[in-house]
């Protein structure tokens, strides 16, 4: 989904609150409840097997914008975990409210059931060095394509030797998700952000189903910024 969690390239954010090598990173947790974020979601998703990691990501993405932006990081994990346990019927909203002593705000329910991986339009896996294009899709459910690379072209640097369940399917709890490798695709900064961008590139880890092969014959335009006419 094109949610507010999809922050890559969104402008208006100020300085990152850090200076290099200034932090000892110990203790790892700063408040005594923070470890519960990961601990409880590992219990629920891992030990109980109640959900896959992509379902947790999706649950957090479904938090209202107000809640998402006001909640600290580990609180978002707690809210995502609680949302899924309620949706899976393992606990109830009432139990949470009672334990909390007030209303426990969960994420917004999904309005769709996800989707299978796009039927294989590619005759073969993509090869290292091949130019590929990210499908220009608007998917209502969970998806692991950051909006800033949609419809953009990049070069394949690596194909993983392992396959994982397609996020748009498993993210909605469908265990029949097709397993696919992912590709490390490098996009030039100017392709992503326009000609005013500084040199550099971004490499995005994309499932095979998010990519399309570029038909060399159909491609008559400049290969660097083929979608820009301005």
């Amino acid at each position, binding site marked *: 989904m094109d949610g507010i969690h*999809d*922050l*890559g*390239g*969104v402008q208006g*954010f100020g300085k*990152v609150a*850090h200076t*290099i*090598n200034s*932090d000892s*990173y*110990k203790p*790892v*947790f700063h*408040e005594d*409840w923070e*470890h*519960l974020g*990961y*601990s*409880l979601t590992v*219990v*629920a998703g891992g*030990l109980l097997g109640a959900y896959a990691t992509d379902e947790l*990501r999706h649950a*957090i993405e479904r938090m*209202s914008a*107000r*809640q998402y932006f006001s909640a600290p*990081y*580990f*609180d978002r994990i*707690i809210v995502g*975990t609680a949302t899924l346990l309620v949706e899976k019927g*393992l*606990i109830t909203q009432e*139990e949470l409210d009672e*334990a*909390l*002593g007030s*209303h*426990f*705000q969960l994420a917004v329910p999904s309005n769709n059931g996800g989707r299978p991986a796009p039927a294989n339009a590619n005759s073969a896996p993509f090869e290292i060095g091949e130019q590929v294009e990210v499908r220009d899709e608007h998917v209502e459910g969970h998806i*692991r394509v*950051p909006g*800033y690379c949609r419809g953009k072209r990049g070069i394949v640097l690596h194909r993983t030797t*392992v396959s*994982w369940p397609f996020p748009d399917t498993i993210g909605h709890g469908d265990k029949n998700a097709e397993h696919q490798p992912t590709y*490390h695709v*490098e996009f030039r900064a100017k392709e*992503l952000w326009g000609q005013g961008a*500084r*040199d*550099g*590139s*971004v490499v*995005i*880890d994309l*499932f095979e189903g998010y990519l399309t092969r570029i038909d060399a014959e159909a491609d008559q335009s400049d290969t660097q910024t083929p979608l820009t006419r301005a």
Partner: protein
Amino acid sequence: MTQSPDYTPANTPSARANALLKVMTDKGFVPEGFIQAFTQKMEVEWDPANGARVVARAWVDPEFRELLLRDGTAACEQFGYTGMQGEYIVALENTPTLQNVIVCSLCSCTAWPVLGLPPEWYKSFEFRARLVREGATVLRELGEDLDDDIVVKVWDTTAESRYMVLPVRPEGTDHMSEEELAALVTKDVLIGIARPRLTELASASQEG
């Protein structure tokens, strides 16, 4: 109405976390001692010193370096750095004119066993929003003012690959032992926002 119902929640993050803990515990979902053991793992076992040891080994052992770049998971397994969020590790090789930097623009994915849990700034909206668009500027603001001839390559952790940066071994370190070299490699170096510095040996050692 003048605002959404969730505008000001009547409870705190701490209260919510403990309420969920109570409900899950009451249901019998939480095995005795599990949270303590897992928290110990997060606080102690998963440590940037692990990734530093991997880097130092690659600096002194060309064969290991080749393995690390070809199959990061196998290389890290030699140290026992495997498991959760370490299932598919990819090492990113810096050069004098290339600086790799890791981010997760969609959430917070990180190679826990070799980098430790992601720090607050890495999970911040600011870092997630800005790094993919203005990497060099963000690095300069953080204190790493790269020369103009150094290209920044940002790796957005959007799937299941987990990255670690393999920095260039600094000059003037020929005399150093593997352990001394590892002390040059901070968490920030492994994420890629900093390059290793000789002068940081002392403070880095203190961080354990």
